[in-house]
C-alpha cells in the first residue's frame, strides 16, 4: 500500500531532478555560447527558450503549491501554518545569499565589461587607424604620381594591339578562351615591372581592355568598378585602398591617359599596387583590432544585457529550484506533524480508530508510534467502557423496576425501558431534559413533579415516596425511591430514582379488604333475612283471614313489600358474596370474536332499539380463559354502555376486537365504546372500586367484578372518557393470547 505514494514521490523527484539537470546543462551551454558565438550561436536561442520554458514550468509548479497552501491556510488545515513558517524560513535561507551573490556578480560583470573599454584605448585605436591611413595615403600619393607618370609615358606612343572588349568579359553570354588572350604590349609590361605594380591595364574609351599586364596569375584582370572608370574618364584620377579577396590590401589607381587627342583622351590606365608584406600585416592587424574593438564597443550594452540575462536566468533558476525544494521539504517535514494534528483532531472528535503511518524512525516517528499506541489504548478502554455500559444497559433493561438517573442539573441521563413504561413517556421526551420539564410536558406526571422534583432539587441523600399517576392504562401507584449519586469520594454528581409499580399490590390489598367486608356483610345481613321473610309470610298467612277486607289488603301489601325487599337484599347479598369469594376458573380456549358476537346478539334481541356495531378482527388469536366469567365481563360492560346512553335516545355502541403487539407478546384487545355522557371526571381514578357508580340504582360492583375477572385472566382493563370532541366512554380490555404467559397457568385461583 505504501509503495504507491513512495513511487509517485520518487517519480516526481526524478522528473524535477532531470528537469533541473537539463536547465543547468542548458545554462552552462548558454554561458559557453556567450563566450564563443561561432560555436554556440545557433544554439543560443534554443537554449534561451529551453531555460525560459523550464523556468515557467517551475514557476507554474510553485504557483500550484502556493495556491494549495493558501487554500489550506484559509481552511485552517492542521500543519498549514507550520508549512508556511518552514517555507518562509527555507526560502529566506536560500534566496537571501543567492540574491546578494547575484547583485555582486552583476556589479562585477558590469564593471568587468566596462573595464574592457577605455577612452584612451579608444583614442589609441582611432589614432592607430588614422596613422595607418596616413601612412598608406603617403604611399598612395606616391603611387598616384607614379601612375600618372606612367600614363604620361603611355600617352607618348599609340597603341597598336587589337583591343579586348571589356563588355565581352562582363557578358555571361560570351566565352573568353585563355589561349586567345593577347598579352599586353612590352611597354606596359616594362612599365609595370619597373614601377612595381601588381597589375596594370589600359582600358579604352568603350571599356575595352587595350593592354594588360599582371603579376597575378588570374586570367581576368581585376577591373575597376564602373564609378571608378567614370571618374577617371572624366579626367579625375581615382586612388583607393582595395582589400582583395585574399585579404591583402592593394592600392587601386585609375588615371586618364591623355594622348592629346579628344577621342583618345578617355582611355584609362588602371593599376593595382601591392603593399609590402609587413605593411599588409600591420594594416590587417590594425584593421582587425579596430573592427573587433568597435564591434565590442557596439555590443557593450548588449553583452551586459546578455550576461545579466544569463545571470538572471541562473538566479531565477536557483530561486525557483530553491523555492520548490523549500515547498517540498516544508511539506515533507510538516506532513507527519499535520498527520498528528489531524489524528488528534479525529480523536478529539471521537474517532479512536485513527492510526498514522510511521514514515521514519526519528523523533517524529517515535511520536507517531506513541500516538498510535495512545489511540489503540483509548480505543481499547472505550470498548471496555462500552461493553460495561452495554452490560449495565442490558441489566437495566431486564429490570422490572424503572430506573432513571439524573445529572447534577437534574437532566435525565439514563432511563430504562421499565421506567419509560411505568411513567408512560417516550424515550425521546426524556433524554437530556430535566425531570421537571418531563413532568411539565406530561399532564399525567404532574403528581410526580409535585413530589419527586422537590426532593431531587433538595438533594436529599435518600428518600422514598409513593405517587399515584393516571397512565393511559389507568391509575398507577408508583413507589419512588431516590438517592444521590457519588462518583468516588466527591460531592453528589446526580440522582438515581427507582420506580416500582405497586398498583397490583395495593389493589390486591384493597380487593382483599373489600372481599372481607363483602363476606362479613353478606354473612351478617343474609342470616336475619330468611327469618324476616318467613315471619312476614307467617304474619300474612295467620292474620289475613282474620282481618277485614281493607286491613287484609293493607297487610297483603305490606307483607309483599317486606318479602320483595328481603329478596332484593338477598340478591344483593349474593352478589356481595360472589364478589368476595375466590371462584374456580374453568379455563379453556376461547374465541373472543365468537363470545363477543353471542353476547352482542343477546343484547340486540333484548334491546331492539339499540344499535350495536361490531368490528371484529378476523386474525384474532384465541385466548385461554373461563368463557363464563369472560361472558360476565362483556355482559357488564355492554350493559353499562347501553345504560350510559341518555334517556330517550337510541343507544349506539361499538364493539371492536383487535390483535395488538405488546413488546414480544401478542394480546387481544376488546374495545367497547358508547356515545353517552361519559364518566364524571372525579370518578375516573376510582371507577373500578366497589360502590363507585354514578347510576342511581347500581350496586357499584359491576365494574369491580369486571376488573376482578380481567385480572384473574392476567389482563388489564381501563375505562376512560373519549377525547373531545367525541362523546362517551371507552372500555378497553387487553388479554394475553394463547401461548403467552397467562395461558400456561392452567386452572388456578385468582386472588
Amino acid at each position: 500500500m505504501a509503495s504507491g505514494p513512495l513511487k509517485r514521490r520518487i517519480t516526481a523527484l526524478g522528473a524535477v531532478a532531470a528537469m533541473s539537470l537539463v536547465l543547468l546543462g542548458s545554462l552552462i551551454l548558454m554561458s559557453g555560447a556567450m563566450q564563443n558565438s561561432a560555436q554556440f550561436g545557433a544554439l543560443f536561442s534554443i537554449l534561451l527558450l529551453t531555460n525560459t520554458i523550464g523556468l515557467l514550468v517551475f514557476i507554474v509548479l510553485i504557483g500550484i503549491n502556493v495556491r494549495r497552501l493558501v487554500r489550506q491556510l484559509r481552511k485552517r488545515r492542521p500543519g498549514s501554518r507550520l508549512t508556511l513558517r518552514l517555507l518562509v524560513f527555507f526560502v529566506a535561507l536560500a534566496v537571501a545569499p543567492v540574491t546578494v551573490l547575484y547583485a555582486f556578480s552583476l556589479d562585477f560583470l558590469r564593471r568587468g565589461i566596462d573595464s574592457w573599454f577605455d577612452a584612451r584605448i579608444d583614442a589609441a585605436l582611432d589614432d592607430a587607424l588614422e596613422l595607418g591611413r596616413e601612412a598608406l595615403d603617403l604611399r598612395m600619393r606616391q603611387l598616384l604620381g607614379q601612375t600618372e607618370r606612367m600614363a604620361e609615358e603611355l600617352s607618348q606612343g599609340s597603341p597598336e594591339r587589337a583591343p579586348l572588349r571589356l563588355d565581352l568579359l562582363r557578358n555571361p553570354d560570351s566565352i573568353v578562351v585563355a589561349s586567345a588572350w593577347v598579352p599586353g604590349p612590352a611597354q606596359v609590361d616594362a612599365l609595370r615591372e619597373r614601377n612595381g605594380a601588381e597589375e596594370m591595364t589600359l582600358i579604352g574609351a568603350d571599356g575595352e581592355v587595350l593592354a594588360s599586364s599582371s603579376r597575378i596569375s588570374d586570367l581576368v584582370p581585376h577591373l575597376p568598378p564602373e564609378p571608378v572608370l567614370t571618374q577617371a574618364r572624366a579626367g579625375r584620377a581615382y586612388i583607393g585602398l582595395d582589400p582583395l579577396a585574399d585579404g591583402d590590401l592593394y592600392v587601386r589607381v585609375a588615371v586618364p591617359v591623355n594622348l592629346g587627342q579628344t577621342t583618345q583622351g578617355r582611355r584609362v590606365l588602371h593599376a593595382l599596387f601591392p603593399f609590402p608584406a609587413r605593411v599588409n600585416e600591420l594594416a590587417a592587424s590594425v584593421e582587425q583590432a579596430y573592427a573587433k574593438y568597435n564591434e565590442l564597443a557596439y555590443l557593450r550594452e548588449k553583452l551586459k544585457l546578455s550576461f545579466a540575462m544569463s545571470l538572471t536566468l541562473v538566479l531565477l533558476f536557483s530561486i525557483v529550484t530553491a523555492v520548490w525544494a523549500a515547498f517540498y521539504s516544508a511539506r515533507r517535514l510538516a506532513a507527519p506533524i499535520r498527520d498528528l494534528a489531524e489524528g488528534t483532531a479525529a480523536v478529539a472528535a471521537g474517532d479512536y480508530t485513527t492510526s498514522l503511518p510511521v514514515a521514519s524512525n526519528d523523533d517524529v516517528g517515535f511520536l507517531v508510534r506513541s500516538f498510535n499506541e495512545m489511540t489503540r489504548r483509548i480505543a481499547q478502554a472505550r470498548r471496555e467502557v462500552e461493553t460495561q455500559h452495554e452490560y449495565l444497559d442490558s441489566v437495566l433493561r431486564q429490570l422490572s423496576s424503572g430506573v432513571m438517573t439524573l445529572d447534577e442539573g437534574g437532566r435525565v441521563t439514563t432511563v430504562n425501558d421499565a421506567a419509560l413504561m411505568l411513567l408512560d413517556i417516550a424515550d425521546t421526551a426524556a433524554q437530556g431534559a430535566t425531570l421537571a420539564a418531563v413532568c411539565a410536558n406530561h399532564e399525567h406526571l404532574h403528581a410526580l413533579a409535585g413530589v419527586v422534583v422537590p426532593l431531587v432539587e433538595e438533594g436529599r441523600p435518600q428518600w422514598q415516596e409513593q405517587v399515584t399517576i393516571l397512565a393511559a392504562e389507568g391509575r398507577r401507584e408508583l413507589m419512588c425511591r431516590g438517592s444521590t449519586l457519588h462518583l468516588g469520594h466527591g460531592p453528589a454528581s446526580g440522582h438515581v430514582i427507582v420506580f416500582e409499580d405497586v398498583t397490583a399490590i395495593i389493589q390486591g390489598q384493597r380487593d382483599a379488604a373489600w372481599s372481607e367486608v363483602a363476606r362479613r356483610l353478606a354473612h351478617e345481613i343474609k342470616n336475619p333475612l330468611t327469618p324476616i321473610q318467613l315471619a312476614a309470610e307467617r304474619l300474612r298467612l295467620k292474620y289475613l283471614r282474620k282481618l277485614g277486607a281493607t286491613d287484609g289488603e293493607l297487610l297483603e301489601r305490606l307483607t309483599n313489600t317486606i318479602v320483595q325487599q328481603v329478596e332484593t337484599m338477598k340478591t344483593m347479598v349474593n352478589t356481595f358474596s360472589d364478589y368476595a369469594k375466590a371462584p374456580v376458573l374453568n379455563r379453556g380456549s376461547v374465541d373472543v370474536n365468537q363470545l363477543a358476537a353471542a353476547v352482542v346478539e343477546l343484547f340486540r334481541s333484548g334491546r331492539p332499539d339499540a344499535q350495536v356495531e361490531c368490528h371484529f378482527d378476523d386474525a384474532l388469536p384465541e385466548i385461554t380463559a373461563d368463557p363464563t366469567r369472560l361472558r360476565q365481563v362483556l355482559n357488564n360492560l355492554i350493559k353499562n354502555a347501553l345504560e350510559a346512553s341518555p334517556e330517550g335516545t337510541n343507544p349506539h355502541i361499538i364493539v371492536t376486537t383487535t390483535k395488538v403487539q405488546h413488546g414480544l407478546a401478542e394480546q387481544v384487545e376488546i374495545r367497547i365504546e358508547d356515545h353517552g355522557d361519559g364518566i364524571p371526571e372525579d370518578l375516573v381514578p376510582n371507577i373500578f372500586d366497589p360502590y363507585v357508580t354514578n347510576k342511581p340504582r347500581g350496586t357499584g360492583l359491576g365494574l369491580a367484578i369486571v376488573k376482578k375477572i380481567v385480572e384473574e385472566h392476567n389482563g388489564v382493563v381501563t375505562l376512560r372518557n373519549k377525547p373531545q370532541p367525541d362523546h362517551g366512554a371507552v372500555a378497553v380490555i387487553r388479554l394475553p393470547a394463547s401461548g403467552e404467559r397467562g395461558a400456561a397457568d392452567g386452572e388456578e385461583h385468582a386472588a
Partner: protein
Amino acid sequence: MMRASRSSRLLALVVTWALVWASVCTAYASDIVIEEAALNEHNGILVLDADSHFDFSADAIEALNSGIPLYFDLEVRLLRARRYLWDVDIFTTRRRYAIERHALSNQFVLTELITGERRLHRTLELAIEDLSRIRRLPLVEAATLELPPDLAAAIRIELDINALPAPMIPLAYVSPGWHMSSGWYQWPVVR
C-alpha cells in the same frame, strides 16, 4: 465561475498580446520590398533579375557602421502553382550576401558568399543599392529541369538574425527593427 472567467480572461489577454506582437513583427518585417523580378533564359541558363528596396533600421545601420556584418539570404523557388493544393517545388536555391564595413579603407564591402565575389562601395547607400539590384544571377541550366507550362517563380530576401553576434540575437528576436524580410514575391514565368 469567477475563477473560470478570470482564467479565460487571462488566456484571452495572452492570445491578444501574441496576435498583436505577431502582427507588429509582420508589419515591421516588410522592410525589404521586392519591386520587380524576372526570370530569363540566356544560353540555356536561367538567370534572375530583381529590383528591390531595402529600408535599413537605425539599429541595423548603427551595427553596420560599428563593424557588424549583416547577412542576407536570397531564396529562389521555381514552382508549379496550384489553386487548391500547395505548390510543387521544381527547383530551389539559396544565395547568401554579406555586407560589412572595412574600416581602414572606409568602404562597405558587399560579398556574394558562394562565389566569393566582392564589390566595394564608398558609402553604405551605394552598397545597399548594389544589394538591391540583382542582375543576371545564374540559377540553373534550364535543360536539367522539366519546366511545366504554368511555371512560376518566387523569391524572398531576408536578414539572417541567427548570424548576428550571439549577444544581439535575443534582442534581435524581440525587436521589430531587426526583422527584415521581403516575404515571398511570386510571379508567373512567361516563356
